């Protein structure tokens, strides 16, 4: 099969790149091996730093950080683009990408992020902002005591959903009869507060409906607390982006093991995807490498030797440093600086190819956790790489 652009990896960067291209009439394929990190993430979009101002934080990032190649203007534009797409799809993201805010985590700590899905919009902000907690009987990944320790005024009501996992409960919420019984139960509870915190289980597909109905029928404001993976808000984010991409005509090759690729001089010609029987061939004019860091399998470490897993292009690695900090809680292991170095057009610097672009957490010096730039960096570099790929094929 022949495409204009083949994107490898279906994470935030790969999906955003493919949507951007497909909207411009570029025929696009996404080839990926497994589910991306965004599908297990909090669903919130981290942009930069942990202070109040994201752009200020970026000023303090080291010169090699990919954000400096994107530029602030383009960063803000790409995030706005993301917000528009999601709104049209019915999963609004709330917030201003220039600012940070904090949301409550399941252990009662605060997590800094920038944009949140509408289900977390009401997340308590200042201390003393009183709320009630609704939990579920024997739920596996949510323990209200972690929260009530910090917020002693919070009362807890526990609903028996008949299942213990977040995915199980969220799936039930998508069912009307179940939702009705849940709403009726809430109305019987004594709840002194206007705000209700709830683990993130407000449905997987009908979240908007469920959320609005709960607020309407109970007269309260709800906010979700994202739980451990499998995390429902992450799942919603991933599914929505995929739906959007499919809607715009992107072809997906999932569970795809890339066993080989064809090249001619400075060009990559196509990918061979292993399949029982005859393999699939995906040919394209340009390729975007968005396969993520070690955790997703885009990079691989064999003790001290690092490799890139699709084209085996050279991986930058921090020289002469210990790769790991001594302290678990200190952010930024030196190893996280490693990755693919790109030029201003997002073409890997040390590779021989002219039609290969790279984006997302595979980029060297992105250090997404240390710099609090996870999805934001993936979105903006994804769009940037897509622009350069489009320019290249025109």
């Amino acid at each position, binding site marked *: 099969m022949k495409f204009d652009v083949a994107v490898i990896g279906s994470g935030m960067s790969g999906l955003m790149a493919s949507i951007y291209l497909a909207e411009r009439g570029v025929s696009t394929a996404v080839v990926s091996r497994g589910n991306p990190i965004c599908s297990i993430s909090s669903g919130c979009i981290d942009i930069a730093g942990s202070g109040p101002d994201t752009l200020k934080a970026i000023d303090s990032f080291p010169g090699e950080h990919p954000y400096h190649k994107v530029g602030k203007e383009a960063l803000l534009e790409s995030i706005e683009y993301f917000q528009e797409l999601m709104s049209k799809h019915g999963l609004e993201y709330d917030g201003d990408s220039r600012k940070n805010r904090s949301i409550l985590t399941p*252990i009662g*700590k605060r997590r800094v992020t920038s944009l949140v899905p509408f289900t977390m919009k009401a997340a308590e902000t200042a201390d003393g902002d009183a709320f009630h907690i609704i939990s579920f009987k024997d739920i596996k990944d949510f323990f209200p*005591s*972690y929260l009530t320790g910090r917020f002693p005024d919070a009362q807890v009501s526990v609903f028996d959903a008949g299942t213990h996992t977040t995915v199980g409960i969220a799936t039930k919420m998508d069912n009307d009869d179940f939702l009705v019984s849940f709403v009726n139960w809430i109305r019987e509870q004594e709840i002194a507060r206007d705000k209700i915190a709830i683990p993130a289980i407000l449905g997987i597909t009908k979240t908007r409906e469920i959320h609005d109905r709960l607020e309407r029928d109970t007269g309260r404001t709800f906010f979700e607390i994202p739980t451990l993976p499998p995390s429902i808000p992450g799942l919603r984010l991933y599914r929505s982006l995929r739906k959007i991409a499919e809607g715009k005509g992107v072809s997906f090759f999932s569970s795809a093991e890339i066993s080989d690729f064809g090249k001619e001089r400075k060009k990559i010609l196509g990918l061979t995807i292993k399949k029982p029987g005859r393999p699939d061939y995906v040919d394209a004019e340009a390729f975007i490498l968005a396969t993520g860091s070690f*955790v997703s399998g885009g990079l691989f470490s064999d003790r*001290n030797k690092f490799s890139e897993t699709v084209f085996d292009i050279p991986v930058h690695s921090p020289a002469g440093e210990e790769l790991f900090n001594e302290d678990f809680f200190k*952010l930024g292991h030196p190893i996280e600086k490693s990755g693919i170095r790109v030029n201003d057009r997002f073409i890997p610097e040390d590779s021989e190819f002219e039609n290969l672009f790279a984006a997302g957490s595979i980029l060297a010096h992105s250090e997404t956790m*240390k710099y609090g730039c996870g999805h934001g960096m993936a979105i903006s570099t994804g769009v940037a790489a897509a622009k350069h790929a489009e320019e290249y094929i025109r």
Partner: protein
Amino acid sequence: MIKTDVIIIGGGATGTGVARDLALRGIDHCLIEKKDLAAGATGACHGLLHSGGRYAVEDRESAVECIQENAILRRIGSKCVEQTEGLFVRLPGDTEEYRDLFLEGCHEAGIETELLNSSQALELVPNLNPNTTEAVKVPDASIDPFRLCMLNVESSKNSGGRVFTHHEVVDIVTHKGRCAGVRARDEFTSEIEEIQGKVIVNATGAWGDQIATMAGQEVQMSLSKGSLIIANHRLANMVLNRLRPAANGDIIVPNETVSLAGTTSIRVDNPENLCVEDSEISEIRSEAARMLPDFDGVRLVRSYTGVRPLLKAKDPSGGDRAITRGFRVVDHKNGLFSILGGKLTTYRLMAEKLTDAVMDHFGISVPCTTAELPLEGQEALSGYPISKRLRELEDMMCECELVPSSKVRQVIEEAGTRNISDIQHRTRLGMGPCQGGFCTYRALGLMQETGRMNPEEALDALRSFLQRRYKGTRSLLWGNQLREEQLVEGIYLSLLGMAEHEV
């Protein structure tokens, strides 16, 4: 102030074994451990219930002790011993002479052997090195040292014995030149507890000389550090040893869902603050892979190290591997008794000999029954076959080791525990491939829901668990283990918000 007849210092296999023995002989006692049960060499060991084969050539006396104790422990501790059997594998380059010495040694020590040709050996362990020349089958087994200590303590508690964990003996109180008690510091509150006793038993293994010194005595020991690595799969169902003189990395022991390979032997002066060297890991891995090639690609989930408390060599020229694994009971004649050397496999015998000496001292004659009576409390722990656990999958708190929430809840409620390692040792929670990455948050959540801990304690416990866990995996972070680590860091540092931010 607490008064008792015998104070036991050290909550390893030896100390808890002494507690059980005293309990069964009706002697009032109290056990003091500075950390947790099995926190010393016992919990850091390979978990091999030796048949004695390893010592059959070089250390006949230990070999005899091992095979006798092996049979006893299989009988009395069926729920903490897995009867895997073991092979001594001869690879190209391992000599026939050693094989003959081995067979002869085993025969004389009373260890049953069966010589297998290459295809018979491969039938038992299909992923064994296909170039295996031959193998000798012996009655090795796999033993869970944490459970063992817990069960020993069970008998002690049932007879009214008291156990103080997280209490470090900082001083021995003497009166007219004789030991009269100890002072122990509570790890959490730093309060000092004074306990009076007629006899003090020093069962602190590698720390033995520190305790003896507190009583104005000295004991001579050699401390030998050994390291182990854990692979995330149960790669073989039998214990595997190399059929050659003991060397680094020549034993692989299956333990529930994982495999342990080791060890090394490095002389140290101090039992504290040891770490695993990169070179040890490489050596153990490559040696293990010679017997079991699958060890090469497998994901290593943890490495750790412990110190063997060995008797001082009479002839120091042979190196630590040549030192006898035998043991000695020392009556310091001032109310202090030390038990030195030995190994996990022979802990019961060591406890018996020591308790005999204490009984002599008291002038009471009650025979030892620890070899006849099954360990108490095994019913509660066991009856937990994999098939049953699989049925409770929806409710799994620990997906790697298949531990359901109901089981954890039961342990928390019945044992009244306030401590995460207690749960781990009773249920194996967090001992599998993700090393507690997911389930520890859950177990601590449950601990709060049941009122055992307040949130501050739970967060402290979570922090120290994560720090310890990281220390155990830090030197193994490549391949898939690195992926797991990035995931766990994403969860705790980012999703739960536990990181310390700079930017």
